[in-house]
């Protein structure tokens, strides 16, 4: 929590029990420790998601064991399973009903890319429908992997910028993405 900015001498004169930080850091700290997942179990990944919430893996350690059935009370959508074309508008509506700031984890191969279901019925990656923050591979991923994804998302939220800083970061990420070589132009080993 300590500020990384150069000290200006103020810290030396603070009474005990007072900590200085930036609004960004404080907001990130609060947000990352108060994530409310929405239930969006669609297939076998949902079983692993439920296991992560139950006693053995104990998502309560991160204060996230209560999955809200109402999107109004949730700010993290864990898309657990394959999304069919018929489910896609429902998924988008649930996402739109969630209060910002909100995040999405595409859990498993199907939610990330369509997985083994490359056919007429299944959306080939949930990022066609909603913006995804974390892609979690696995078929299905183990609860440990889901928790790893959640912890990485926590770090991401902790470092999230606010206001003009955020716009600057978004521009930088966009520029980097445009400059990167697209995968269809990459050649060589499939690694």
């Amino acid at each position, binding site marked *: 929590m300590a500020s990384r900015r150069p000290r200006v001498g103020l810290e030396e004169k603070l009474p005990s029990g007072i900590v200085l930080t930036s609004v960004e850091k404080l907001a990130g700290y609060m947000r990352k420790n108060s994530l409310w997942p929405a239930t969006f179990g669609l297939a076998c990944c949902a079983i692993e998601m439920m296991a992560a919430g139950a006693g053995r893996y104990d998502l309560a350690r991160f204060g996230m064991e209560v999955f809200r059935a109402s999107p109004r009370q949730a700010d993290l959508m864990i898309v657990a399973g394959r999304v069919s*074309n*018929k489910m896609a508008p429902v998924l988008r509506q649930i996402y739109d009903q969630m209060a910002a700031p909100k995040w999405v984890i595409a859990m498993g191969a199907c939610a990330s890319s369509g997985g083994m279901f*490359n*056919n*007429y*019925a299944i959306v*080939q990656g949930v990022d066609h429908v909603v913006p995804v923050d974390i892609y979690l591979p696995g078929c299905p991923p183990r609860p440990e992997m889901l928790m790893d994804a959640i912890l990485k998302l926590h770090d991401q939220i902790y470092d999230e910028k606010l206001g003009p800083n955020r716009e600057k970061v978004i521009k930088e990420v966009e520029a980097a993405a445009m400059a990167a070589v697209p*995968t*269809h132009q*990459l*050649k*060589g*080993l*499939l690694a």
Partner: protein
Amino acid sequence: MSDEQHGMFGAAGTGDTSGYGGLVRATASAGSSQRPFGGYFDQVADDLERAYPDFADAIERVVVDRGELTLHIKRERLVEVALILRDKLKFEMSMGVSGVHYPEDSNRELHAVYHLLSVTNNQRIRLEVSVPDVDPHIPSLVEVWAGSNWNERETFDMFGIIFDGHPGLTRILMPDDWQGHPQRKDYALGGIGVEYKGAVTPPPSDRRSYK
């Protein structure tokens, strides 16, 4: 109906070295059966004949295969036979309505199969109705077994069989504005090609024909 199948998933000339491409299997479609049918099937047939005088006219053929009885019924007589089976022979439940598509079987392309269960007598039989692709109409059995409602909607959605008299025959699995009926044999699997680091994988429907 085709008598033999070549390869697996229709794989042929693809450089498939697994051996499945050279596989030839005879598919014997079960022919009509003669009495005695065995087990309780004779009793069911006797009771049905007694309770339903037009039995000979309504039944196209009777098949006993793998210890299971299937009655092929003319679609005009389906509701009458179903009512007799429910009220007189105590087949209280219809466990589901399956669809089958036989593209080679001209004028009998689409089949609807009703799996019936008698809880009273612990008996199971099957009704099968076949209709041509150009006229895919079968009378609805929702009035006989209310549980057939969603089953018939599903069979309509997947195979395009129209159940006349159904209270609300709409799609149940696919989106309402969907084109086509996905479980028919001639329905393309779809999918997209995948390209990664110069390697190209064509969409599944181009890779195999999935018989």
